[in-house]
């Protein structure tokens, strides 16, 4: 028992003090400091992080409730204007809401009622069927989360192999596993293809990044699609969905149609505050082929089309995509 007590005392001497704290200032300082050193888009988003700190520090007071503190810290985090910047507690999650930067441009019910009917196929994460007298394949992917297996992709590519074109609908696709993006892209290339570059934070300065790493797609050893593909996007196309849009710019057979994406091209990290809340924010940048980070603010479509909600029987974006094959 004496040894236990003695050695436990040694631990107290050797290690840093316990930093667990619900103090508002302690938690603001910690979150601000972590972001200051590791967030990857200060310059592009022109965020004066010191000014943000001062503005939010002024809102703190010692007796504030957890809910009030969350409002302040969440607001500070949201000042990054990045839906990969989230503060997570057991009662709330902060978010920026890039999807609300543009109008709503998608309603699945219109697709089902007016275009593909209710007997569409569900293959893994894909919902799909033929359009336009089976000359066009329509493939809806609402998320890159979950499993997207080679079998799923084989079936979809095979089913529409003889069509004149494919419509890949990524509207309101909030992202998911990056690996699934590369799996899907591998079905649209015939040789190793450079699609973008990526950098990662390597130091505490706002511009401390690694050298740009090239990102290549290898063709999949399985059914691939060689005809024209129209990729539909909107402001709800975010994270991996946005990365798919960015990479599409490098593939001549793919065309982007709809609205600008919501961005979210940086890969987020994960961490914890002294009060137990968790957070995440972007720590990498995805760059275009000319090594620009600008598409973090949204990947622009090649053809801009918006929905007209005065007529709820028509999906103008889908109609425009179908016309692209005529």
């Amino acid at each position, binding site marked *: 028992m004496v040894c236990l007590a003695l*050695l436990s005392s040694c631990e107290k001497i050797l290690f840093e003090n316990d930093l667990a704290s619900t103090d508002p200032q302690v938690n603001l300082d910690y979150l601000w400091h972590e972001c200051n050193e590791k967030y990857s888009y200060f310059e592009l988003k022109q965020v004066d992080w010191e000014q943000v700190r001062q503005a939010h520090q002024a809102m703190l007071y010692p007796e504030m409730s957890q809910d009030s503190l969350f409002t302040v810290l969440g607001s500070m985090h949201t000042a990054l204007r990045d839906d990969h910047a989230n503060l997570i507690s057991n009662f709330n999650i902060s978010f920026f809401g890039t999807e609300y930067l543009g109008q709503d441009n998608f309603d699945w019910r219109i697709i089902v009622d007016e275009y593909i009917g209710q007997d569409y196929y569900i293959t893994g994460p894909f919902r799909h069927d033929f359009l336009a007298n089976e000359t066009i394949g329509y493939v809806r992917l609402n998320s890159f989360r979950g499993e997207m297996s080679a079998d799923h992709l084989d079936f979809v590519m095979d089913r529409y192999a003889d069509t004149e074109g494919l419509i890949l609908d990524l509207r309101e696709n909030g992202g998911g596993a990056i690996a699934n993006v590369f799996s899907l892209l591998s079905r649209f290339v015939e040789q190793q293809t450079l699609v973008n570059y990526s950098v990662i934070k390597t*130091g505490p300065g706002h511009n401390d990044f690694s050298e740009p790493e090239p990102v290549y797609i290898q063709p999949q050893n399985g059914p691939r699609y060689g005809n024209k593909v129209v990729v539909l996007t909107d402001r709800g196309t975010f994270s991996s969905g946005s*990365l798919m849009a960015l990479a599409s710019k490098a593939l001549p057979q793919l065309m982007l149609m709809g609205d600008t994406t919501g961005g979210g091209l940086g*890969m987020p990290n994960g961490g914890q505050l002294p009060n137990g809340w968790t957070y*995440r924010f972007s720590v*990498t940048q995805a760059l275009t082929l000319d090594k620009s980070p600008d598409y973090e603010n949204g990947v622009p479509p090649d053809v801009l089309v918006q929905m007209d909600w005065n007529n709820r029987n028509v999906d103008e974006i889908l109609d425009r995509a179908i016309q692209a094959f005529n």
Partner: protein
Amino acid sequence: MKAIQGYLWGVLFMMIPWLVQAQQPGDSINNKAQKRPAYLSTAAGLSSSVFRDFATSPLRYAGTPVFVALGHMDVDHRRQSGIELSYTFGKFSNDFNNHENASKVNIIMFNYAELFHLKSLSTSRLNVKVGGQWTTTVNLRENAALQNNSTGVDILSTLFGSIKGTLKIQDRQSLSATFNLGLINGAYRNGFVYVGHSAPTNQDQFFDQYQFRAFTGYRFNTQLDYTLYFENKNALRFGYGWDAFTTGSDDQFEVASHVFTVTLLFNLR
């Protein structure tokens, strides 16, 4: 290339105890014809441990993981050589401010020790040995709440200076105490943002951002053992070990463990 080099460093670090053991001088180095008693040891126990990884969280995670180990030891009053492979596994958690988060931890540790009799401090009942020990620890943690930082793999390797005193209590009972002081500490850890760059670059290199730091942080451990020898030369050992280390630097990883073990020692000659 950098990632491959990093990976090889990590593998080499893990293999050092085995490589040294493989190159250990053979029986010809022993002065006497008679070989040292040799034991195969199997141990099991429970640990009370705390860790904190500043790369991802300022909070301490505590748990009582299970400890198992397999070892081989040659020992007599002049010299002790031993090698041990241990595995510790369990759940660590922190529930500060009513936010419970858990980390599944798996730890693999290699130990290789060589100790030599120190006559000047020894008596007829007290045997003191000094020497060194090399320990390599692979620490794997999974905490889903940390999202893309949910997986932490840290490889630490330490060369210790060691001193061990064994007190003969009665005919077949002994008490021993070992103190190890880390002399050279090395850590192989993920880079500045503690997340790899392989996912967004469509590569399969888990260690691509890993960095090796030498002469960083510190490590101490102690071991207290009570050993009961049987007539058939096998033995039963009850032990308590304490191990504490930090990797140093701003994002340091610190661990303290109290391990209580029961070990069966099977005499091999």
